[in-house]
């Protein structure tokens, strides 16, 4: 009798111990661009222009939905305006809509390099046969 009671009690305890754990998948953070970004690398048709042309003063300032540009260089747009991702969680395109012209989009890469988030955009500021790739990093 005692043995039966003990066995039942252990079984009940074991069953109670098997409470299912609720696993919550970690969410992909929404990508944010807020802040000022500078050009740290620039190529034209694959040729590195970074140290050949003065990109040092260029800044693009992103807020929640707007952007402005200082010290313009050949870029996807020439004026400030609104910006948007195609998908805020998994963005593959970054679009710019200047106040005075239509929207322009660039393929977007969003890698982390040496602990710093970079954004890489590809576009043609002049002739469409020429492809430029700029790597932007947050300016201090």
């Amino acid at each position: 009798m005692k043995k039966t009671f003990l066995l039942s009690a252990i079984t009940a305890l074991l069953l109670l111990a098997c409470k299912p754990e609720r696993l919550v998948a970690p969410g992909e953070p929404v990508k944010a661009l807020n802040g000022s970004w500078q050009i740290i690398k620039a190529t034209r048709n694959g040729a590195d222009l970074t140290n050949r042309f003065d990109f040092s003063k260029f800044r693009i300032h992103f807020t929640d939905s707007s952007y402005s540009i200082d010290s313009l260089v050949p870029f996807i747009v020439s004026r400030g305006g609104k910006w948007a991702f195609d998908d805020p969680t998994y963005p593959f395109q970054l679009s710019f809509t200047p106040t005075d012209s239509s929207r322009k989009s660039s393929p977007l890469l969003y890698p982390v390099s040496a602990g710093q988030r970079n954004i890489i955009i590809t576009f043609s500021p002049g002739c469409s046969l020429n492809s430029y790739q700029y790597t932007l990093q947050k300016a201090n």
Partner: protein
Amino acid sequence: MKPNNIWSWTWKIGGAALLLIIAACSMTIDSIVQPASVNGGDILPVTLNVTITTNTTQTSNFMVAVLVPKVWNASKNATITFTSDISSGDQGMTLIPAGTPAPQGGGLDWPTLLATKIGNGGNLLPDYEWVAFYSNSSYSVAGNATIHATVSIKIKTSPDNLSFKLGYCVANSTDGLSGSDRYGSYFSSCFQVNGTGDLIDFCNPQLANIDPRTSLDNDIITLTFDGGVTPTTLDNATSVYLCVSGITDTGDSLSVCEQTNRTKMRPLGLNKWQIDLWPRKLFNLPDNKHLTGLRYYFTDAAGGSKVGYGGGSLPFTYTFKCQ
């Protein structure tokens, strides 16, 4: 190593070498018919007379490749056919897509392998490409046979005014470019297209050039002065500056001819100088104005020595275009 082992390896290596020699076709381009020039936009007709000599039975596709200016877009604008002793009527050929590994090419695709093994024929501007085609059918050839083929190449040229050294190569889909006797190649002398715009001269060293060749005024353009091409009054200059006029779409001429940091060229050595500039910024263009072209010289620090086209007093010219 024991004598028996040495003999065993000698036989193995010798046998493999013999097999390679036997299982091969050799190809030569015997003669070529190509005009010295065509007008821009016309079709360039070329005929190659090819001899293929076999040592053993082989089944392969025939390969023909051409070295052409990129601006011709030959992958879309070229048609290649051939006739031969072992086929009946015109045989079609199809573009080999870039990225398709060439046989015995170490993983390289045909355009890369051709550029590596056969070269660029001495063209001095980098805007050229090899474009390769395979026959639509494969052909079985008997051993110890000699086969003649006549290849007909038709390429629609672009309207551009250019001179270029055309290149041709024939090979097969088994041997690839694995040995110098397995393929035939030929480079022409300077071929001329009498087109429109500034001459794009692949054949002669250029005293000055602008990269990219096609650009608009909102691009970053690179001007290079190569004083090593011919003696000029800037041969002993310690610094070189750009003196440039921008021609606008309304016909105005805007000039930036000063010896300051914004026109100073960086030395590349061997009397070669270079500057990268953004034309819209250099000429402070308002939004509603665009440049159609540039006229430019190179000067010394004092501005007294001025070098233009061919080292003379006329300016170099550049036309902004995007096609």
